[in-house]
C-alpha cells in the first residue's frame, strides 16, 4: 500500500475569529482525553503516512507531549512532512523546540496580517508585534515555515497587503498561504453589517492579483489558487488534496478520502471522544473520477491534462484569457482562478 496523508484536527481555540466556520471550541482542558481518542482512531484505520498535518482550531494549544504521543502512534515513513498550524499568541521558544523534538518539521503560522487594526477587527489574539516575535522565534527553530495572510479584509487597503508580504519575505519564510476572505454563513462576520459594507468583489480581486504579482517578484511563485512557495517548499500534504491522493482525516469535522470513498466525521467532540472508533458518514462513494481529478488539479498552476472535449469547451475561456492550453495541458490564468467556480461549473459539471 502506498503512503497516505494524515490530517489531525485539533478543535481547540481560545477565542473564535469572526470569519471562521471551522469546528472549534474553547475547552482545551480535555486534550488528554482527546489525544487518546485520536490515537485509538489512528490504530483502528492503520496505514502508513508520508505527510501529517495538524490543523485547527489551534494545534499549538496541544501540549508537545500529546503531539509526540500522536506521532508515535502512527506509522510514518522516514522523511515525511509533518506540519503543524500555530497561532502567534501561543508560540514560545521552549514549546516550539519541544514540538520539533516530537517530530514536527514544518510550522504554519496564522499571522493573517501585521496591521493592528485588522487583527483586532478579526478578533485575533495577537498584534503586529506579537506576530513578528512569533515569526522570529519559529524561524530560528524550523527551516520550513509557512505563514497565512488574509486578502480582501473589510476596508483593506492594497498597501497593507503589500506591506504584509514584504514583512513576511523579509523574515525569509518558505511558504505563504494567502486566502481571500469569504463570508461564511453563520459566522459573526456574516451578521456584521458594518464590516460587510467594506467588502467588495472588485477590490478583493484587485488585491489578489496584486498579491500574486508581488509574491512572485519576491520569490514565491504561485502553485495553487491560495498558495505560494519558494521552489521545493510546496506543501506536500495539501498537494495530496489537489492531486486526488488518499488521506485520512481524524477528529470532529475532519474529512477523508480512502479507496473510492470520501467520508466525514460529525462536528461533535463529545461523541468523537466517547466512541471507540469515530463514526463516519459517506459524502461520496464513487469519488476520484475524471471530473473530480480535473476539478482539483485545475486549482494548481501546473494544471492538468484534459480530454479533447474539455479542451474544446475550454476554447472560449482560453480566447478570453481565463485559461491557457499547452498541448493537452490546461491551466487557469490568475484572472481565471479568480472566477474558477463559474468556469468549472460550466466546463466540467
Amino acid at each position, binding site marked *: 500500500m502506498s503512503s497516505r496523508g494524515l490530517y489531525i484536527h485539533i478543535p481547540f481555540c481560545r477565542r473564535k475569529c469572526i470569519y471562521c466556520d471551522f469546528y472549534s471550541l474553547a475547552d482545551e482542558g480535555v486534550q488528554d482525553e482527546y489525544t487518546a481518542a485520536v490515537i485509538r482512531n489512528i490504530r483502528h484505520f492503520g496505514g502508513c503516512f508520508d505527510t501529517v498535518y495538524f490543523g485547527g482550531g489551534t494545534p499549538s494549544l496541544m501540549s508537545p507531549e500529546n503531539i509526540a504521543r500522536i506521532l508515535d502512534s502512527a506509522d510514518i515513513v522516514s522523511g515525511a512532512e509533518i506540519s503543524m498550524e500555530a497561532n502567534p499568541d501561543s508560540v514560545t521558544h521552549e514549546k516550539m523546540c519541544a514540538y520539533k523534538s516530537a517530530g514536527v518539521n514544518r510550522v504554519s503560522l496564522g499571522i493573517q496580517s501585521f496591521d493592528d487594526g485588522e487583527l483586532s477587527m478579526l478578533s485575533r489574539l495577537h498584534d503586529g508585534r506579537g506576530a513578528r516575535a512569533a515569526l522570529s522565534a519559529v524561524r530560528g527553530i524550523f527551516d520550513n515555515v509557512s505563514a497565512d495572510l488574509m486578502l480582501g479584509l473589510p476596508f483593506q487597503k492594497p498597501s497593507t497587503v503589500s506591506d504584509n508580504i514584504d514583512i513576511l519575505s523579509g523574515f525569509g519564510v518558505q511558504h505563504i498561504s494567502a486566502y*481571500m476572505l469569504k463570508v461564511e454563513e453563520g459566522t459573526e462576520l456574516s451578521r456584521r453589517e458594518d464590516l460587510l459594507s467594506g467588502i467588495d468583489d472588485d477590490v478583493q480581486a484587485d488585491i489578489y492579483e496584486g498579491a500574486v504579482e508581488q509574491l512572485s517578484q519576491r520569490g514565491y511563485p504561485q502553485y495553487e489558487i491560495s498558495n505560494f512557495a519558494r521552489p521545493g517548499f510546496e506543501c506536500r500534504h495539501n498537494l495530496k488534496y489537489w492531486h486526488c491522493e488518499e488521506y485520512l482525516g481524524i477528529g470532529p469535522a475532519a474529512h477523508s478520502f480512502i479507496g473510492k470513498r470520501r467520508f466525514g466525521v460529525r462536528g461533535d467532540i463529545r461523541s468523537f471522544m466517547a466512541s471507540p472508533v469515530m463514526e463516519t458518514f459517506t459524502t461520496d462513494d464513487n469519488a476520484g473520477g475524471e471530473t473530480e481529478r480535473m476539478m482539483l488539479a485545475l486549482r494548481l498552476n501546473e494544471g492538468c491534462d484534459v480530454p479533447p472535449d474539455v479542451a474544446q469547451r475550454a476554447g472560449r475561456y482560453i480566447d478570453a484569457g481565463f485559461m491557457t492550453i499547452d498541448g493537452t495541458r490546461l491551466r487557469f490564468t490568475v484572472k481565471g482562478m479568480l472566477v474558477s467556480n463559474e468556469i468549472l461549473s*460550466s466546463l466540467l459539471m
Partner: protein
Amino acid sequence: MDKSNIRNFCIIAHIDHGKSTLADRILELTKTVALRDMEDQLLDNMDIERERGITIKARAVRLLYTADDGQEYVLNLIDTPGHVDFNYEVSRSLAACEGAILIVDASQGIEAQTLANTYLALEHDLEIVPVINKIDLPSADPERVCHEIENVIGIPALDAPRISAKTGQNIRAVLERVVADIPAPKGDADAPLKALIFDSIYDPYKGVIIYVRITDGKVKIGDRIRLMATGAEFDVVEAGYMGAVDLVNAGELHAGEVGYITASIKSIGDTKVGDTVTLADAPCDEALPGYREVNPMVFSGIYPADGAHYGDLREALEKLQLNDASLSFEPETSAALGFGFRCGFLGLLHMEIIEERLEREYNLDLITTAPSVIYKIRLTNGDTVYIDNPSNYPENTLIAEACEPVVKASILTPKEYVGNIMDLCIDRRGTFKDMTYLDEDRVEMHYVLPLNEIVYDFFDALKSRTRGYASFDYELSGYEPGKLVKLDVLLNGEVVDALSFIVSEEKAYPRARKITEKLKEHIPRQLFEVPVQAAIGGKIIARETVKAMRKDVLAKCYGGDISRKKKLLEKQKEGKKRMRQLGSVEVPQEAFMAVLKLDE
C-alpha cells in the same frame, strides 16, 4: 309557477362592498343551502375569486322565498362579474333581470364601480333596490350614504334597508323589497321560443351548460334548438334550474324563468354570451338586441420557463379556453424565449387571472412579456394593419399614422388627492375631461387615457398616490393618433425581442433609462462585461453596463472536504439551468418580470 311570483334580479356593488356575503346570507335565509354546507361566499367557487374577492364568471341560483304576504316566490339571483374587464358579460347578465340590488358600503359610500354598474343597470331599465351594508362598522354613516345615493344617482334611498350582511342583520327586509319593488317578468309563453344566453360553462360530462333567461315561449327536453348568432343546432338533453349546489333537471323552462340547458354541445365557442336561443322548427322573428362579439384588448406573450413544458402550457390554455371563450391564444416564437403563445385578454385583470390559474391550477412556471394593446397603423402604401405584438411593429419610415386605443376613465376620490391624481394622469398622457363634486368631500374626475398607459401598473400607481382611497373604472373609447415608437432592448449588442415594447415618443427616454437600470439590477455579473442598451430604430438612447464578474472562487477547502466543493459547483450548474441563455448572456427569469414593474 305563476310568472307573477317570479323575480329575476342581480346584485351590483363596488368591489368589497359585500356582494358575495349578501348572496350567502340570502341563500341561508331561503334555506337554499343547508347551513352545514355553507362555505363562505358560496357563489364565487373558484379559489382565485374567493381570494381576490371578485367574481369572475357569472353564476345564477334559484331560491324559494315565502314573503310576509304569505305567498311563495321564486327568486332567481344572477351573480354578475364586478370588474370592467367583464363589462359585456355584466351587461348580458343585467339583460336577464328586471331588477338589481345596489349595495353601498355604509362607510365608503359610492365608488367608481358602483356608478358604472348602476348606470349600466339603468340603461337596461332595471328597478334599483338600494341597500346600505356594513352598518355594524364603527365608521358606518348610513345617513350620509343615503343622501349620497339620492344626490349622485338620483334614486330614492332614505328608506333603503340598512343591513349587515356579515352579521345577518336585516336581510329579510332586502328580500321583501325585492318582492315588492322589482316587477315580475313579462313575456308571452305562447310565442316562439326566445331565450338569452347570459353565461355558459363547460362540463366534462354534460358538455356545455348554457345559462338562459327565457323571454318568450318555452323549451323542453327533446326540442331542437338553434343558436341564432352561430346558427348551430342541438337537441335539448336537459332543461332546468340551478340549485345552490346542483343543477335540477325540471324537464322544461317557460317564459320569465331563468335556468339552464344542456344539449351535448362540445364547444363553448358555439354558445356565445348574448346570443339568442330559439327553436329550429319554429324560430322567432328576430334575435334579442345587444349581442356582440367579444374581442380581446390586451395581449401578452406567455412562455414556459422551461421550454420542455410547451406542450403542458398548450394543454392548460386549451382547458381554460373551454370555459372562457374570451381567452384567445396562438403559437408564437421568440428568439429569446423560444416557443410560447400570444394570448389575448379582455383586460388586465383577466390577464392576471389567467396567468395565475395557469401557474396555480396547472403548476406551470411562466415567463410573460409586457402587455401590449392593439395598435392601428396606417402604412405609407395606404394599407391599415393592426399590431398586437411589438415585434411586428413596422419601421417608422413605413408608417403614415399610428393610432392607439384610448379609454374613458372615471376616478372617484376624496378631494385631497385630486392633485396627485392629476399629476398621475398627466404623466400617463391623459386628457382631462371634467370633474364634479359628489358631495363636500368626494370628487368624480373624467379623463381620456391611452389604454397602453393603464395596462402596466396604473391601478397600483393610483392606489399608492391616494392611500388606497381612489377607485377607478374605464370603458374603451376607440382609437386616437399618437406619436408612438418601438423601443428595443439590446443585451451585449443583440436585440431581445421579448423585451421590445411600444411607447409614446415623449416617454421613450425615461422608460429606456428605467428599463436599462432594472435589467442591470437583475442580470448577474457574467465573465464578460454586458452592455444593456435601449434603442429606437437602431439609435441607442440609454445604456447601462453589467460589469464583468471578477471573483467567484473557493479560496479554501474546509478540512479536505472535496465533496462540498463538488456539490457547490453542481448547484451552481443547476442555477444556470434556470437562466435564459440570450446569445452569450445568461438572464434570470426575474429580469423579465422586473421590467413589467417599472414603477417600483
